[in-house]
């Protein structure tokens, strides 16, 4: 089972570190990271394996919101993307 984390907001030091740190705390394995900084805006899409996650997806989102302030964060199960964009 996989989930997608997206983080969008003003760029600053340590965003990736904080996100991946939170994931590690909850035993989510990072599979892929795609990030870019456009002007001063930071956008990242991270694919994580949640088969061995030690908390709920909802809790992970709450923790991310707490640890990475002032950014727009979405945590979504991968099934929604697969069903919307694949036949």
């Amino acid at each position, binding site marked *: 089972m996989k989930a*997608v984390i*997206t983080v969008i907001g003003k760029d600053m030091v340590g965003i990736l570190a904080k996100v991946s740190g939170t994931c590690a705390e909850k035993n989510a394995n990072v599979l*892929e990271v*795609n990030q870019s900084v456009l002007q001063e805006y930071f956008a990242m*899409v991270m*694919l994580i394996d949640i088969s061995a996650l030690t908390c709920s*997806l*909802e809790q992970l*989102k709450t923790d991310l919101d707490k640890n990475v302030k002032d950014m*727009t964060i*979405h*945590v*979504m*199960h*991968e*099934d*929604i*993307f*697969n*069903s*919307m*964009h694949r036949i």
Partner: protein
Amino acid sequence: MLNMNDILETITMIQEENLDIRTITMGISLLDCADSDAEKACEKIYKKIYSKAKDLVKTGDAIEKKYGIPIVNKRISVTPVSMLLAASGGDPLRYAKILDRAAKDVGVNFIGGYSALVHKGFSAGDLELIRSIPRALSETEFVCSCVNVGSTRSGINMDAVKLMGKVIKETSLLTKDRQCIGAAKLVVFCNAPEDNPFMAGAFHGPGEPDCIINIGVSGPGVVRAALAKMDDNEDLNAVSDAIKKTAFKITRMGQLVGAEASAALGVPFGIIDLSLAPTPAVGDSVAHILEEIGLEKCGCWGTTAALAMLNDAVKKGGVMASGNVGGLSGAFIPVTEDAGMISAAESGALCLEKLEAMTAVCSVGLDMVIIPGDTPEEVISAMIADEAAIGMINSKTTAVRVIPAIGSNEGDELDFGGLLGKGPVMKVNRYSPSKMINRGGRIPAPMQSLKN
């Protein structure tokens, strides 16, 4: 592998374009709650609704969190109450009160099914139930009501049409201190679908299984945004294609949520209703899609053609995405719930006669239309008759949900707040149809051949 663009597209749809699951509606059959003792019947109804739906809201919220997709409403539809009333007799309001309490206790925001199916005639319980609708809707908070007065196979019950004009007016009168909100919870149908998850017209048809999950998806904003990205010179084939693709994606999401909810609740999955249901929120309007296609203002000439194409393309995309499409499935045009329609009605571009033409090519009918409070009952009945005739002849669902604004006239405004929105009081043709309406009887079922 997941594609970055696909991920961002989905997030933009949810975040910027108001994509959501409009409703998870649990259909519950109450046939096994019928009892000759109304007290006992009510007890059974409460127990059944509570036991089936107690986890509905919780499950909906959990799915919302898992996929990050808003699920706006959780609702319940039940067997038409007139069938239970037929067994018990007595005061119909008792049933309305128990439905209201059950809805409140499980935390849903509407419960539909205070209904009667009278397209060919009245049977036991039907007349009593219909006459009690004004009080039921004014004395409860969550109960919605609908009455089916016609069908392609049986014609139109004009006695019921006459009665419903009066019932609508009375319902409005009893709730005149609350913006006439009662009438906004009352729908008069022709060819009512038995599995519609959208309120106020949802009820659990007698042909349905014991308990079932139906999903209503929405997303006018997403369709509009997809069209806004297109070049103005592209032809209508391309426009129709873009609508189809978008409808496909929206419906797939509904399918996913429906399957998940059905598994979590242990209730079979019924249908997805892939309607474009607008809300008063900016950017969530069906009228704005029509304007994006190329109309200056919704209601101008060309509106019917644009809407016909939109409605058809939505169905084509949706049918490909799910094997269980049902309900109303099309574009809704409720005036007060759609920012673009409100503006068109206020500016005078959209009149009731044009709306009527639009209902011939889309779902559902004269929906959420505010009319002057002094509109005669016969005129309201005649509006119902006209809409029912369109539905009957074209083998489609049509409906009337008009709100006589008691004490207000053309140009005034009613504001219901929330999803029901607000809108201007629209001009109604005052010439009298009362001789025809007072004849009563039945308009016979139409020919199914020689279609011209």
